[in-house]
C-alpha cells in the first residue's frame, strides 16, 4: 500500500509541524518560518470552508435529485447561498441589505436567550435541597450585583455579589482553568506520540 495512503503519513504530517512550532516557541529559532506556518493554518481554514461548501452542495443536491425529505428547503438553501455569494461580489448594497434585514434578525433570534432563560428559570429553578437554595441565592445576588438597581435597593447586594465573584467563583474557575491546561498538555503529548488521532476522523 502506498505510504501516502497510510495513517502513519497523516500522523507525521500533523506531528512534524507541531514539534517545529514547539521548538520555535521555546528557542525562538526560525521565527519567520513559524509565522508562515501559522498563516498556513488560516489558509487551511479557508480550504475547509471550500470542503464544507462542497459537502453542503452534495448533501442538498442529492436530496433535491431524489426528492427526499424536505427537499424544498434544500432548494431554499441553494438559492440563499448563491444569492448571498453573488451579492457579496457584484452588489455590496444588496449584500448589506441581506445582512441587515435577513441574516442579523435570524441570528439574533437564534442567540436570544432571554425568553428561553425565563422559561427555564420559571419551570426549572426549583430547589429540592439546601445546596439548591444556596445556588439560587448566589444567582440572585449575582444578578442584583450586575443590575444597577441592586445596589440602590440594598448596598449589600453589590458587596455580597462581589464576594461571590471574587472568592468562590475565582477558586472554582482557577481550578477549572488549571485542569483544562493539564488536559491540553496530556492531549498534546498523546498527539505527539501518535496515540491521539481524532483529527483523522477516527
Amino acid at each position, binding site marked *: 500500500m502506498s505510504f501516502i495512503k497510510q495513517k502513519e503519513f497523516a500522523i507525521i504530517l500533523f506531528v512534524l509541524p507541531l514539534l517545529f512550532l514547539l521548538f520555535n516557541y521555546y528557542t525562538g529559532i526560525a*521565527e519567520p518560518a*513559524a*509565522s*508562515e506556518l*501559522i*498563516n498556513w*493554518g*488560516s489558509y487551511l*481554514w*479557508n480550504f475547509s*470552508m471550500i470542503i464544507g461548501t462542497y459537502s453542503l452542495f452534495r448533501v442538498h443536491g442529492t436530496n433535491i435529485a431524489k426528492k427526499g425529505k424536505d427537499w424544498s428547503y434544500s432548494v431554499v438553501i441553494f438559492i440563499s447561498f448563491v444569492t448571498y455569494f453573488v451579492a457579496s461580489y457584484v452588489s455590496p448594497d444588496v449584500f*448589506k441589505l441581506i*445582512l441587515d434585514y435577513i*441574516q*442579523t434578525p435570524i*441570528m*439574533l433570534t437564534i*442567540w436570544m436567550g*432571554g*425568553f428561553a*432563560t*425565563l*422559561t427555564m*428559570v*420559571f*419551570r426549572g*429553578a*426549583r*430547589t429540592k435541597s439546601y445546596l439548591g437554595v444556596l445556588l*439560587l441565592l448566589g*444567582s*440572585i445576588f449575582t*444578578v*442584583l450585583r*450586575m*443590575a*444597577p*438597581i*441592586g*445596589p*440602590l435597593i440594598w448596598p449589600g447586594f453589590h458587596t455580597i455579589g462581589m464576594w461571590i*465573584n*471574587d472568592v468562590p*467563583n*475565582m477558586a472554582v*474557575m*482557577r481550578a477549572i*482553568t488549571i485542569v*483544562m491546561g493539564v488536559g491540553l498538555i496530556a492531549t498534546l503529548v498523546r498527539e505527539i506520540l501518535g496515540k491521539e488521532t481524532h483529527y483523522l476522523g477516527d
Partner: protein
Amino acid sequence: MTEKKKWYNISMDVQDSLVYFILILLCGTVVLYPLGIPLNVTKETREYYDALIAVPEGGVILYDEAYMVQSYVTGSEITMFRMMFDLIREKDVKLIIVSSCVDGPLGGAMIDKLLAEGVDKTGTTYGVDYVNFGWLPGFELVLSSISKNIQTVTMNDAYGTPISQIPMMKDLTTADIDVFCFSCSVSADPWMRQWGPLHKPILMSGGSSLIAQAMPYYESRVLTAYLNGARGLAELEQIYGKFTIATALMDATNLASLYGIALILYSNIRYQMGRRKMQ
C-alpha cells in the same frame, strides 16, 4: 367530584405566554417612559478607562472586535471606538482594528458599521492614524499571528490595500503595540493564551458570564482590566459623558432582572406549597 380549578392553575403554554407577555410589557414600558435609574461607576470600569487613556503619546492600540451579533444591532461599543478616536486626535495614537469573531464575517461588518455610523473621524486619516484589517478567518490562529508578527497577520486590509502600502504599518512590529483590547462572547482563554506572554496591558469587554470565567486572569494581572458586560459599557458612557443605546438598555435590564428573580421566587414558593399539600 372534581375540585374547582383555581385561577392560577392554568396550562403550561398559557403560563409561558403570560411570562413572555409580561416581559415584553415591562421592557416596552421603559422604552416609552424611561425610568432614569442612576448608574454608579464601578472600580472595574474606572480601571478600564484609566488603562485605555494611559496609552503613551504616539502609542499603538490593537482592538479585536469579536463580540456577538447583538453588538452589531445595538452598536453598543460605539463609546469605545469614540474614545479611541479621541485618543488618536489628542495623543497621536495609532489604532489597528481587526476581527477574529467566531460568528464569521459579521465581525468585519460590525467594524464597518461602527466606523461608518458611530464615530467622528474628522482630524484622522485612514492608513496614517488607523487601519482596519477586517474579519480574518482562523480565530485563535489570527491571535497567534498577531502575537508573533503583526506584519504577517494579513496581506491586505479590509479594503484590499496591501499592508506594505499602508503608512502606519511600515516597520511596525508586535512589540510596538502598547495596548491590546478585545471584546468577545466566548471564553477569554484564546486571547489570554496568545497575548498573555506578551506582558502588555490587555483590556477585555464581554458578557457577564464571560467575566466570571476570566476572573483568574484578572486576579493574576494577565488581564489588566475588564468591562462588566452591558453594564460596563453603560458605565463607560457615564465616564465619557455621551450616551447611546447601551445606557438606554439599562432600564430594561433592571426590570428584567427583578422580573427574573420574582419568577424564581414565585416558582419555588408554588413548588414548596405543592409539596406540602401532597405530604
